[in-house]
């Protein structure tokens, strides 16, 4: 992607391990940020705060995993927030109407999957650009959530669901466990299954994939469906935490999710991305927010720091990978 495409080319042995090297770069970025905050904020490295950071990163990580798959397939999904909102409000209203929890959860996930399917179908069958499709559904899905609830939050989520998505297991918050499981599943999907290869192939060279007989449409749709499903899962974690489902929930989630994936090494040109990197990227963003809050940085300066840290993380990562 740089003018030094030559440099990249002359280091093939490099490329062979590039995935893990790229992840190492992200890890170094994370370590640097953690070190800086640890020096500035007493208690930043306390176990409790670290668990906190993981918990607060879990929703973004969940979305970012789906986003990573979509990005690898050569697409982008701007509609994650509104998809999450729709499934949150539907799950919540079902629960309030007395639907058993497992059924309501399934319904919520199903809604996310359907929304994702619509995105995927518009991209794969109608042949529209992913950015513009999900920009369109970003508005459409949000409007549906608002109209469905009349703009009001749905309060009074039963404690059964709340403890499921906001409890602890052996001292680890359940959202963290859920996301870890999802991450492992995503890693297996990407690295070990034919679908993972198809995703890489479709994003890396669609023509070659087509000629090789890869089911292009099905593959793309799969990515968007997973993204929709994970957005729904993220919304369940959130309503578990907040005890309320708002139709405006998930505003600007897409930017955080894309940032996490990109920091983690996903290329928005497609064909490239790392599950581990994305998780690290989400934690970088989470640690940053946490640290800035603990430092009580004033709003304007917090915004400044957010921007600069994103840039710094990318530059550190670029430098450690040995630019050329």
């Amino acid at each position, binding site marked *: 992607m740089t003018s030094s495409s030559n440099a990249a080319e002359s280091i093939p042995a490099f490329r062979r391990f590039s995935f893990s090297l790229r992840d190492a770069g992200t890890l170094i970025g994370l370590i640097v940020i953690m070190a800086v905050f640890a020096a500035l904020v007493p208690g930043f490295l306390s176990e*409790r705060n670290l668990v906190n950071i993981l918990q*607060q990163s879990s929703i973004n990580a969940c979305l970012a995993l789906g986003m990573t798959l979509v990005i690898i397939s050569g697409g982008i999904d701007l509609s994650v927030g509104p998809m999450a909102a729709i499934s949150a409000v539907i799950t919540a209203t079902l629960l309030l109407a007395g639907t058993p929890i497992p059924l309501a959860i399934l319904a919520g996930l199903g809604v996310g999957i359907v929304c994702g399917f619509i995105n995927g179908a518009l991209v794969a069958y109608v042949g529209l650009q992913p950015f513009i499709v999900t920009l369109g559904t970003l508005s459409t899905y949000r409007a549906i959530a608002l109209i469905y609830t009349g703009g009001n939050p749905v309060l009074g989520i039963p404690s059964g669901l709340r403890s499921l998505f906001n409890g602890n297991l052996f001292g680890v918050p359940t959202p963290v466990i859920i996301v870890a499981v999802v991450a492992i599943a995503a890693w297996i999907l990407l690295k070990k299954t034919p679908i993972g290869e198809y995703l890489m192939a479709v994003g890396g060279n669609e023509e070659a994939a087509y000629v090789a007989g890869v089911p292009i449409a099905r593959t793309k749709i799969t990515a968007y469906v997973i993204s929709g499903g994970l957005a729904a899962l993220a919304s369940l974690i959130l309503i578990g935490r*907040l005890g*309320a489902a*708002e139709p405006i929930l998930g505003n600007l989630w897409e930017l955080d999710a894309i940032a996490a994936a990109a920091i983690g090494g996903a290329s928005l040109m497609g064909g490239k991305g790392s599950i581990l990197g994305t998780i690290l990227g989400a934690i970088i963003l989470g640690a940053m927010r946490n640290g800035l*809050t*603990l430092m009580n940085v*004033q709003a304007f300066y*917090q*915004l400044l720091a957010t921007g600069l840290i994103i840039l710094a993380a990318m530059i550190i990562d670029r430098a450690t990978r040995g630019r050329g």
Partner: protein
Amino acid sequence: QDLAPLNSDTEKNRMDWSELEAKLGPFPKLPEGTKAGAVSKTLTNEYWRSLGEGYASFGKKVHVPVVYQAAQSEGDQLGQLTIAEGMITQGYNVLLVSPQTDANLQPVIEQAKAAKIPVVNVNDAVIPQAEHYVGNVQRDNGVRVAKWFIKNRPQGGKVAIVEGQAGVYAAVQRTDGFKSTISEGGKFKVVASVPGNWDRQTSYDAATNILNQHPDLVGFYANNDGMALGIVEAVKAAGLAGKVAVFGTDGISDAYSSIKAGELTGTVDSFPVLTGEVALETALRLVAGQKLPRVVATPQALITADNLSRYQGANVDVRAVLMEDAKAAK
């Protein structure tokens, strides 16, 4: 252009809503076919929907059709401008606007002036060139909560603020009112004042982090109720329910329920429905040719479990209660 820039909180040429009838007489007769247009920030927040209800109910009472529109999201500055400009071309007799920012509806003021349509700036952001403003004193929201702390937590302690979107008028004023008032006695310390971006989730996370560092915190003040309800959950999750007071702003219905349930400590209700009614009344009086002061102040009250029943309930006439309050204040 010769009008001094408006500061709705300090403007001298003002009147309390309760004096409208007393000073200007009964509601006048309007020209035939009068219709009003109203533009607000967003409908995704209950506050603005309630304001619209106020417009509608007063419009119905005096048989004036009111069209109420809102931008697609908070922060959609140009979209809101487009809507308001459209209303001028469509020939409404009066406009009520609640701008996204201080400046984004400025052209509307100019165009309306040219078209001889009165414009009333209703609440929140303040257009400097506005000739008429109806709304509460934003700064006072924060002041009232600070006073509660000073009165009810005489030993002082640590408090934290969760702010709205950086740079938005209401957020700045409310925060400032709280901060300056609570710092006065020197007993309280504002240990954190962090952005919550009007967002429940962000506020939840911020509150969790703050509680982590300051488990001995006395209370939170949030710039709106949605954020406050997020904070309440964070306080509960941290096992500090009952120990940390949480205040919101706006008085949305969920805030009332939460106060009733003993979770949220209080909210500063600015009575959007009533504000809507007063604003439309003011606007229509202008249409009828009456002269009004530049600012008509609307009421607000700190609602806690102690006084909640006075302001909400099946047989409560909020208008009457507030009228009483106003009389008492004098």
